[in-house]
C-alpha cells in the first residue's frame, strides 16, 4: 500500500462548501452510492440480529441457566460483554466532547459516526445486565426508583445502582448530543433532497432549522456546554462500571487503580473500533479527502497512548498483588492469571494490548492502513480478553479452595455476543445509508478555519487548501 506524504491535510483536494456538501449528502440523496459492500455488511448484520433474537427468546424461555454462569462464577460472558461494549462507546464521546474542549478541529470529520457508534454500543451493552437479571420484565423495580405498591426502593449504596444511573444517563446524553448535531445537517438535506417524501420527513426532523445567527448563537452555547457536561460524564461512566468490581473484596477485583485504568481501556478499545469502521467506509464511499491519512495517524497515536496507560494498569495490578501482602491477591495474580489454567487468556491479552499497539510508534505503521486494521483487531480482542481475565476468571478461585470451579461458556454465551455484534453492524450500516455519516456543517466550519477565515476565494470555484493548514507538522 502506498504511503501518503507526512504533511497531509485535514481536508485534501480542491474543495468548496458545495463539494463538501456533495460528497457527504449524496450518500443519502443518491442511494445508488450504496453498492455490494453495503448489502454484504447489512446481510451479515441482519443475520446477527436474527441470531440475537433467537438467543434472547431461548434465554427468556429457559432462564439464565442456558448460559455457562454458575456458582462461583455468577458473572461471566454477560458482564464481560457489557463492559466491553460500554468501553467501545467511550471513544465517541471522547472525540465529540473532549477533543472539542481541547480545540482539536480535526475531530469535526469523525465525530458524527463515532457518536453513532457510542449510541449503538451502549444499546448492545444495556441488553446484557438487563437479561442477566433473569426476569427483565420485573427488572424495572429492581433498577429504577419509582413508588411501587410493594413499598420497595432500590439500594443506592450499591455500585450496581450507580451503574444503572450512569449508563442510562450516558445513553440519554449521547443521544441528545448526537441529535443536536444532526438538526442543522437534516436542514441541509431537506434543502437538497429532490424526493418529496424525504423532504417532508427531513423538514420534520430538522424542526424547521433555518441557520439563523440567533439559532447558531444558542446552538453553540448549548453544544459547548453539553461537551463540558459529557466530559466528566464519560469519565464517570467507566469509573462507576469499574466500581462494580473495585468496591468488592474478591481477589483480583479489589484494586484501586481500576477507575482510571478502565477509562483508558475504554478509550483504547473505542478508538480501535472507530478505526475499524472508518478505514473501510472512507474507502468504499470515497471520503478519503475528508477522513485523511492524518486523521488515521492521530487516532493511531491516541490508541498507542491509551494502550500505554492500560499497560501501566497491568503493571500496577501485579505490583498491588505483591505490595498489598494479601495472600489471596497474590494467588489470584501469580498462580491463576500468569501461570494458572487461564494463563493463555492472560498472555494473549498482553500480546494484544501491550505488544501489538507498539507498532504505532512507527510512522509507516500508522500510515499503512492494513497494519492499522490488524492492530485494531488485536486491540478489540485484547480488550475483550482483559475483561474476561478480570471478571469470570477472578471468580473461579475464591477464599476456599473447595469452592474453586473452572468456567466454561455455552454456545448461547457465544451466540448472544455474536448476535450483538451483528446488531451493531446492522445499525451502523443503516446509519451510513440514511443519515449524514460526517457532520456536514462542522466540516464546512473546518474548511473555513483552514482558509484562515478568508473564504471569499471559494465563492466562485473550489480551491486547493494551503499546506500544513491547522495544527503542527507531524
Amino acid at each position: 500500500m502506498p504511503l501518503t506524504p507526512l504533511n497531509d491535510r485535514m481536508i485534501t483536494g480542491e474543495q468548496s462548501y458545495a463539494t463538501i456538501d456533495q460528497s457527504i449528502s449524496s450518500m443519502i440523496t443518491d442511494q445508488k452510492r450504496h453498492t455490494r459492500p453495503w448489502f454484504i455488511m447489512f446481510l451479515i448484520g441482519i443475520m446477527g440480529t436474527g441470531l440475537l433474537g433467537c438467543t434472547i427468546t431461548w434465554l427468556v424461555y429457559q432462564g439464565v441457566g442456558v448460559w455457562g454462569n454458575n456458582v462461583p462464577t455468577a458473572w461471566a460472558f454477560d458482564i464481560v460483554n457489557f463492559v466491553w461494549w460500554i468501553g467501545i462507546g467511550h471513544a465517541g464521546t471522547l472525540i465529540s466532547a473532549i477533543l472539542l474542549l481541547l480545540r482539536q478541529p480535526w475531530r469535526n470529520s469523525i465525530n458524527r459516526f463515532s457518536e453513532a457508534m457510542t449510541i449503538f454500543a451502549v444499546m448492545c451493552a444495556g441488553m446484557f445486565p438487563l437479561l442477566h437479571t433473569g426476569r427483565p420484565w420485573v427488572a424495572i423495580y429492581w433498577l429504577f426508583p419509582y413508588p411501587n405498591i410493594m413499598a420497595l426502593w432500590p439500594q443506592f449504596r450499591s455500585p450496581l445502582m450507580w451503574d444503572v444511573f450512569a449508563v442510562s444517563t450516558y445513553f440519554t446524553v449521547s443521544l441528545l448530543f448526537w441529535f443536536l448535531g444532526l438538526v442543522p445537517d437534516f436542514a441541509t438535506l431537506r434543502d437538497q433532497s429532490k424526493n418529496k417524501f424525504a423532504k417532508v420527513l427531513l423538514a420534520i426532523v430538522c424542526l424547521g432549522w433555518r441557520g439563523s445567527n440567533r439559532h447558531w448563537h444558542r446552538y453553540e452555547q448549548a453544544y459547548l456546554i453539553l461537551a463540558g457536561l459529557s466530559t466528566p460524564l464519560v469519565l464517570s461512566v467507566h469509573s462507576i462500571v469499574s466500581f462494580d468490581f473495585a468496591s468488592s473484596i474478591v481477589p483480583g477485583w479489589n484494586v484501586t487503580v481500576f477507575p482510571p485504568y478502565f477509562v483508558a481501556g475504554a478509550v483504547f478499545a473505542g478508538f480501535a473500533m472507530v478505526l475499524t469502521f472508518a478505514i473501510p467506509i472512507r474507502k468504499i464511499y470515497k471520503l478519503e479527502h475528508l477522513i485523511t491519512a492524518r486523521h488515521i495517524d492521530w487516532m493511531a497515536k491516541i490508541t498507542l497512548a491509551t494502550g500505554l496507560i492500560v499497560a501501566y494498569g497491568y503493571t500496577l495490578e501485579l505490583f498491588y498483588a505483591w505490595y498489598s501482602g494479601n495472600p489471596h491477591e497474590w494467588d489470584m495474580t501469580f498462580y491463576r492469571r500468569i501461570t494458572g489454567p487461564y494463563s493463555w487468556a492472560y498472555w494473549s491479552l498482553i500480546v494484544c494490548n501491550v505488544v501489538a499497539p507498539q507498532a504505532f510508534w512507527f510512522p509507516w505503521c500508522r500510515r499503512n492502513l492494513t497494519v492499522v486494521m490488524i492492530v485494531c483487531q488485536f486491540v478489540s480482542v485484547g480488550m475483550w480478553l482483559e475483561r474476561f481475565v478480570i471478571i469470570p476468571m477472578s471468580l473461579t478461585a475464591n477464599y476456599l479452595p473447595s469452592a474453586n470451579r473452572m468456567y466454561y461458556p455455552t454456545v448461547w454465551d457465544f451466540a448472544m455476543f455474536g448476535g450483538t455484534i451483528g446488531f451493531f453492524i446492522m445499525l451502523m450500516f443503516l446509519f451510513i445509508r440514511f443519515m449524514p455519516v460526517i457532520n456536514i456543517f462542522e466540516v464546512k466550519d473546518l474548511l473555513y478555519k483552514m482558509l484562515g477565515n478568508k473564504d471569499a476565494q471559494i465563492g466562485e470555484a473550489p480551491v486547493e487548501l494551503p499546506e500544513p493548514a491547522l495544527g503542527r507538522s507531524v
Partner: protein
Amino acid sequence: MSYGGSSTGETYALVAEFASAEELLVAAEKVSQEGYREVDAYTPFPVHGLSDALRFHDVKVPWFIICGGLCGGFFGFTLQWYTATIDYPLNVGGKPFNSLPSFFPVTFECTILFSALTALISMFALNGLPKPYHSIFNTPGFERASKDRFFLAIEKSDAKYDPEATRVFLASLSPLAVSEVEE
C-alpha cells in the same frame, strides 16, 4: 424554495445574499454601524464573530442549564436521602442510613442528565423551534443558505427600515442579490 406557506403580500424583510462568510461579516458590521437592529443572518455553519457584528448578545441558555443542573442534583440527592432514611431505612453492614459518600455518583449523574435535557430544550425553545414555516424561506435561492450562501436580512419591524433607502444601502454592500421577501 417554497414550503407551501400562503403569502400575504406583506413585506417581511429585505434580504441580501453573499457568496462568503468573509463578505457577510463585513456587511453585517456595516449594517449594525448604520443603526439597524432587527437584523438576522443565515449561514450554513456558525460563523464566529457574527453575533458581535450583529450586536446580538444572549446568555439565557447557560443560565437555564445551570438551573436545570441544580434541580437535577437536588432531585438526585433528595431521592436517595428520602428513600434510604425515611421511607425504606435498611441496615446494610452497619452503614449509616444517610450514607453520604455512596450517594455522590447518582447525584452527579442526575445533575448531568437534567442539565443536558435543559440544554437541548432551552436551546430549541428560545430559538422558537420547531417551526416548520418561516417567512425567510420565501427568499429566492434560500435553499443554498444551508449549503454555500450567506444571507443577511433587515426586517421590516426595524425602526430604520425604509423600503427604498434600505434597499439602496444593502445594494451598496456589494451582495450577489437583494430581494424583498414577503411574509
